[in-house]
């Protein structure tokens, strides 16, 4: 377990910033203590300092996990954000998308969401913007990239696009558990 290097920190923050923008500082300085990121076996863990102290006693090969796993660095040192980070990103998300109950299941099973499934969306969301997806009950479901399918538009591109796709980025979906199962929605 070690702190992140400069390079790694930069890469990771860039990724996170896609979803929560400049609210990054809020992640580190929280009201209930200081939190920090630690790297262990290529995974980035987000822990409070109290936990960190105890975890320091555990030898590296015996440590499996601590706090919350935010994501991991791939072999080529790109950072992949995990679904487990959702709880921390959701409160600070800059762009949010709410999807209708009907599309919720389909989304959870790993399918893309069409524009028809969107309930609400934050204004001024550009194309390829990282968004956090919520259900209508404000339950965060995942993080995504907003794609636009048809012709690019100017200004409020969203309203004019005929088909909008939300590319799912969440890893833990029902699809992974029950491939091919269709649920009654």
């Amino acid at each position, binding site marked *: 377990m070690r702190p992140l290097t400069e390079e790694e920190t930069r890469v990771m923050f860039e990724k996170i910033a896609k979803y929560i923008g400049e609210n990054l500082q809020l992640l580190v300085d929280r009201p209930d203590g200081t939190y920090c990121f630690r790297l262990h076996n290529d995974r980035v863990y987000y822990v409070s300092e109290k936990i960190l102290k105890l*975890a320091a006693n555990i030898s590296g090969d015996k440590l499996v*996990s601590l*706090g919350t796993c935010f994501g991991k660095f791939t072999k080529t040192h790109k950072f992949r954000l995990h679904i487990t980070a959702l709880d921390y990103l959701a409160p600070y998300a800059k762009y949010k998308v709410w999807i209708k109950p009907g599309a919720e299941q389909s989304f959870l099973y790993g399918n893309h969401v069409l524009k028809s499934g969107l309930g609400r969306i934050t204004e001024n969301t550009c194309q390829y913007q990282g968004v956090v997806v919520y259900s209508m009950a404000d339950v965060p479901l995942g993080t995504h990239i907003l794609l636009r399918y048809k012709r690019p538009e100017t200004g409020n591109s969203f309203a004019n696009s005929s088909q909008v796709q939300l590319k799912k980025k969440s890893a833990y979906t029902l699809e992974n558990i029950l491939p091919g199962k269709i649920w009654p929605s």
Partner: protein
Amino acid sequence: MGRKLDPAKEKRGPGRKARKQKGAETEVARFLPAAGDESSKRLSSRARKRAAKRRLGSAEALEMPKFPGAKPFPGKLPKGVSGGAVQTPGKKGAQSLLRASQGKKRPAPTHSSEEEEEEDDSEEDDVVNQGGLWDSEDSDADMIDDYGADSTSEDDDEGEELLPIERAARKQKAQEAVAGSQWSEEETEEEEEEAEEESPESGPQKNDETDGGLQINVDEEEPFVLPSAGEMEQDAQTPDLQRIHKRIQDIVAVLRDFGTQREEGRSRSEYLHRLQKDLATYYSYGDFLLGKLMDLFPLSELVEFLEANEVPRPITLRTNTLKTRRRDLAQALINRGVNLDPLGKWSKTGLVVYDSSVPIGATPEYLAGHYMLQGASSMLPVMALAPQEHERILDMCCAPGGKTSYIAQLMKNTGVILANDANAERLKSVVGNLHRLGVTNTIISHYDGRQFPKVVGGFDRVLLDAPCSGTGVISKDPAVKTNKDEKDILRCAHLQKELLLSAIDSVNATSKTGGYLVYCTCSIMVEENEWVVDYALKKRNVRLVPTGLDFGQEGFTRFRERRFHPTLRSTRRFYPHTHNMDGFFIAKFKKFSNSIPQSQTGNSAASTPTNLDLPEVKDQMTPKPKGSSHPAKKARVAVKAKQQLQKRQHPKKASFQKQNGISKGTDSSLPTVSCDTKSQASSKLQDSSQPAQKAEVIRGPKVPRKLKQQSAMPQASKKVGFRKQNASRGTDTEVPVLSLSKTQAALKPEDCDQPLGNSKRAEKVKQQLPEQPFKKAAFRKHNGTPKGPETSTVSLLSSSRPPPAKRRKSQSRGSSHLSS
């Protein structure tokens, strides 16, 4: 087809047709043998008819006029006696004749069928027209072909009343009977062997006569007969589960009232042995496990327990209060089509699922971490542990993470939890579950639980869900029935003891809010539960406290030849058949001291073997009351350190050793030490640089400060003189006489309780002085009498020993200080 069936229509007239109109049952009742005459299989309807017919036999003619148009009561027709009930004592005689001839009687089933017949005796009126249902069949008898049956091959009793197909079937049966004649011969043999053979027959007959008009709903009790070896062999080859089940019930009934119901000449153990074999066969258990269960449960509970293990427990889930509330979750799941209910008064977060139209482990709520599938009994140890916020908790065997997450939600994600498991594969599930449920205050590690206090200790609370034999969760894993052996249970118990001791050592007794440990297993074996807990009580400074669970059976304080500590009554046992949850055992400890009591065997192992004084000292230690256990233990700790020191110094200073022994003896005799041995040792170390003060240092931890000062004697050339001086001062530590001090201590344990019995000591010391020379020699042999703190040993030698010794002492003392 054919005639319309009109049950209400009165059937009248003599002759074959009219008889037929009563129904096939009446026809066949004449010919049906007593139930059970047929093969061991359950009788088919045809077979029953035939049996009934055979039974009716010639008596049918008598019965006909008795049954004018009575209403049919098809519902009352008992199984195994089709249409049968037209019976009289005379018929019974015929039946018994039949039985004897066919030689296929089974006492128990026969009995039951006869009883049923008796019941029907009283319902003669009702039974008459049961045959009405079979009207249509009988009418077609003449028109249907023969099915190849040759009427000549059949018994004369049956005559021409049977349908052709019935004749054919009976013929086939006869052929089978011939084939199985060997089998039946065994039975006839066995019948002849058993003296009580006749009683089942005679019994019902008598009952017949006495109960002529009485309606009885309860089976008559009939002396149950243990089968002989022949039948047991046969059972081994072709177990007839129904028969075995019946026999189980019979044996349990006999044993319940053994005095009156026993068979002559058969002991209780034979019945029990038979029952064990039958239960093992019926429920597919290994003999070992079933023997253990028979020791554990009374017989009635045993059968219930075994039955409960065949059925899975209801699915339960626990709401994750970090993310939702039970009410909201229940609502959401009901909307998805799950039928559920709150778990019980004792749980605020549990829900029990009766049935569900969607897979309960794959709902969006599950994925969002709103609940966790967890057995009801697994929620109990965490409720007993009662973790508070901002505490440090250790979960030693955490996989798959249900209990850990429950702890986290009770702590509201504050504090720190260290979740550990020895199995790397199962740790992955822990990681997944904890992340899914949103637990953020947990560190997950992969240690063997026994390494624990060394890696990190000082936890406020510890939960140990020890790996066990799994005899409480047989319904989840039926393989446990057969693959558990004596060795497995003992191996589990050994591992559990080690883990429990490590867990106890990881708890910080001086924690402000904690100091508790919960030990739980999903097993019902006493070897893994009460025995392990009792072992821990003996080995460590812990005591049992109430778990806080107000239901559940109390743990055993004695079991067969073992006796456990009475506080074991505060532990709890749960069973599948009484609480409808997996078998479980929960014990809650409170640690009241961080010191580890040194076992006496451990000390002797460290020292040289032949130490006469040691046993005395040990004896002195043992009588000490519990209250003084603290100081005693501390003394022992110090003693151990002293041992090391002594060992190192042994080759150099015999006198030193001698004095060590002496002082050790005295020190050990001082029970009431309020101050820490170690601290005193360390303080003495500091002082050791000055020879003059060494004596003071060596006094030992138990010596009050003032005494120490007094004992800071100048170097005495003569040890005796030195000792005398000490004695005169009345210092307790400075008892020059080597073994005498120890013997003194041993002989007068009450002195131990008087920390400042200086005067006494002084007297004793004086008494002992003359014996000193003698003892000295003897004492020198004894190297490691590490009963006193090591510092005391150093004291006397300080005057005579060069500085290097001191250094060594300090080192050893330092090390011993660290180690202790």
